[in-house]
């Protein structure tokens, strides 16, 4: 299983915005139950898309600046970035196939 690396307010630009690969960012917080339940699905995707999509997670409690900048009002939220821009947003939990569709769209 691939465990997405942590990104922060300070490293987001480097980790996500300047990434050559598309990036899926998992916005989460320790007290958010559904976020914990989404994690294994994201990990499965990280395995399946290894080398094609980068996966990171951002703790919204510790990194309110980035969460605020992207208007996150609900977690879990997954944002897909391509060329530094958010191109897909998935709010709440959705079937794995839905998440994969967002990734496929970003890969085109």
């Amino acid at each position, binding site marked *: 299983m691939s465990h997405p690396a942590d990104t922060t307010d300070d490293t987001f630009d480097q980790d996500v915005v300047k990434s050559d690969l598309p990036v899926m960012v998992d916005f989460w917080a320790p007290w958010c139950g559904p976020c914990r339940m989404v994690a294994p699905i994201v990990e499965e995707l990280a395995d399946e898309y290894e080398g094609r999509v980068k996966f990171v997670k951002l703790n919204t*409690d510790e990194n309110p600046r980035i969460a605020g900048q992207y*208007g996150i009002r609900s977690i879990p939220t997954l944002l897909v970035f391509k060329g530094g821009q958010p191109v897909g947003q998935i709010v709440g939990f959705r079937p794995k196939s839905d998440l994969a569709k967002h990734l496929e769209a970003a890969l085109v």
Partner: protein
Amino acid sequence: MSEIDIAIIGGGPTGLAAGLYAARARRRTVLWERGVLGGQIALTSLVENYPGFADGVLGPDLAIDMQRQAESFGMETVYGGVDRLRREPGYWVLATSEGEVRARAVIVAAGADPVKLGVPGEEALTGRGVSYCATCDAAFFGGEVVAVVGGGDAAVEEALFTTRYARHVYLIHRRDRLRASAVLQQRALAHERIEPLWDTVVEEVAAGPDGQVASLALRHVASGSRRDLPVAGVFIFIGHRPSTELLRGLVPLDGGGHAYVNLWMETGQPGLFAAGEVRVDSARQLATAAGDGVTAAVRAEHYLQQYVD
């Protein structure tokens, strides 16, 4: 086509309890979950009414332990949906996102999905101020004014939870009294930062220039008068609807979409069980959900021994 003994559709407490019993009976058991494991308990914070946990237990913790327990006996989990179910002699065939699977018995434990208001702005603003999970999202509304819609236990509990962060919480209910249990009602109505708005319905969720929720269009049911209520967020808890699309046409459903079953969770179709919130007359509690799953799995085992083995 792969073949299994018992297919479980839905990974809430019902499906996980069924999975535990089925796997522990040494049946090849696969559970499909199209969202997240735990179902509605994944959305709750502290569960205070599950027997045996005197200090309460966190819903997600319990769900993770239930999964771990079932998997320790060999249950497999697939994160994906089952689109269709059809009968072939001796088998049910499940059409899944990753191909067809044959199962000798099927337990449908797909639970229920939250009912939406069905008003303009609701869908587009989900995640931008519209939420169905206060436990997840209330923290993003620190110091702000929010609304909770509904009058049952879930709505009142979430309104109380939301006061940890929000400056003011409107509790919007279409009737003139709450349906929630007496203890919760007392707590909510005595709370200085919760303001009930009786006989009131939401007609629209409107966004501000930043694309986030800015106000609700309200209508007072009795007088018909309308007004806008500025809020930064709205949490919607107006009930649940059973997820029984898979069973439509296969087994009789009541007007609310619940499957008719007998006390063994049998649907009347061979080897097809419906348990938990998908069935008629469910008490819709965590303990009864788990109990339903156990009943269905015990009966499925009996069915396999009797007619299949």
